[in-house]
């Protein structure tokens, strides 16, 4: 037990983590590719056409995982950034920076696919629906974090400043969500039901679960790859100092 704990802490150092990260990347990247292929096959070929929405509902298979990942990665990013700030762990802060880009990308994908889905399903590209609005605000929070980190030259200051913004953002997320909900009920009469009335067909669920798993693994692989790049860059700067 004691030995295990010590081993775990040794990975807080970039020197020991770097080889591990590079070794782990293919273990996530390859299963992710396989699951993407399987998920897309089941989603596009096996799953039946929806009797209400036709073929267009298939956007769901990328839209739903992307929306989940967008929210989850923000929480993860804040946790890593706060840990890096509180305990002064460089790797943790680097992890937060690596997560921010992937999280922002998934949030953007969920917005774009949602809009593409909304056009045929609701007849409009954009609705100021509570869920869509809060996803948009989540994207703004990501952008604030990324822009702040990009604009600060000193990496340690960028880490800490980013951690503060992420933590303040995380505190604000429930309040923002509540206010948007409140605003939405005030301004709109009928809300749009996203959940379909009919129960989801088994092949649809299979495809969705496959895609969710694929997105998880993809996120891990890409974040680790990005972490590896950040570590190379930063440690290199320190050597040059």
């Amino acid at each position, binding site marked *: 037990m004691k030995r295990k704990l010590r081993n775990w802490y040794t990975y807080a150092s970039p020197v020991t983590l770097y080889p591990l990260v590079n070794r782990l990347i293919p273990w996530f990247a390859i299963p992710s590719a396989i699951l993407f292929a399987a998920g897309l096959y089941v989603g596009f070929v096996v799953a039946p056409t929806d009797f209400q929405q036709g073929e267009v509902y298939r956007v769901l298979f990328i839209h739903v995982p992307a929306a989940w990942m967008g929210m989850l990665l923000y929480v993860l990013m804040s946790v890593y950034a706060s840990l890096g700030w509180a305990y002064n762990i460089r790797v943790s802060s680097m992890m937060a920076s690596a997560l921010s880009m992937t999280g922002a990308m998934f949030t953007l994908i969920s917005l774009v696919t949602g809009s593409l889905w909304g056009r045929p399903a609701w007849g409009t590209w954009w609705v100021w629906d509570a869920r869509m609005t809060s996803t948009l*605000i989540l994207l*703004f*929070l990501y*952008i*604030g*974090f990324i*822009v*702040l980190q990009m*604009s*600060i030259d000193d990496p*340690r*200051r960028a880490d*800490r*400043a980013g951690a*503060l*913004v992420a933590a*303040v*953002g995380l*505190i*604000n997320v429930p*309040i*923002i969500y*509540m*206010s*948007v909900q*409140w*605003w939405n009920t*005030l301004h709109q009469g009928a809300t749009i039901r996203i959940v379909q009335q009919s129960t989801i067909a088994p092949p649809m669920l299979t495809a969705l679960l496959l895609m969710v798993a694929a997105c998880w693994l993809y996120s891990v692989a890409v974040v680790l790859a990005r972490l590896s790049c950040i570590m190379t860059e930063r440690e290199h700067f320190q050597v040059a100092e």
Partner: protein
Amino acid sequence: MKATSAHGVIFRWLIWREILLSWRRRADLFSTLAFFIVIVSLFPLSVDPDARLLRSIAGGVLWVSALLSTMLGFHRMFSQDFADGSLDQLILLPQPLFLTVIGKVAAQFLLLGVPLVLISPLLGLQYGLTSTATLQLASTLLLGVPVLILLNAIGAALTLGIHGGGLVAALIVLPLCIPALVFGAGGNISLVGAVFALTLAFAPPATAAALRISLE
């Protein structure tokens, strides 16, 4: 007892210093206020000056304009003290840094927020608001502008000494202002008050932490 009164003295001195310094650069204050008035007056020119439409958008327009005006040039809050070295002295004061931040925010509110709130009924008149609606709007602004200033302080502290920091600060702070904006423009005074209380609790310590990060 002695320590508390010392804090009080420092606090008063801090607000007085801030007011004095800002008054000696009063062009900044007037330009902020003018900006607010101009922005609010541009809306009827850019949309249809239909009385009903104007009345329905008045709250939102005034709130967004107030948000933009408080944001304009707000990075000066710490950057001038940073440039002449007095910020280092302020951090060394024998009182918690968040109290210093509250002092600066209070001074900013007196200098910038109060005139903004006072002028808002006049602008409400431009939009054909009834006297009750005007009063409601002014009172939400009275509680809401401190929220905006408190949040701006975080952004200003984080981007201290960064090239193009004002824009970055705006990008960080704007999403955080959404609850105040939604409740304020919606005319719900009690919820704006709740947001104010919450912001007053977390923003000054966050600003203090941000100052320490930036000055390290």
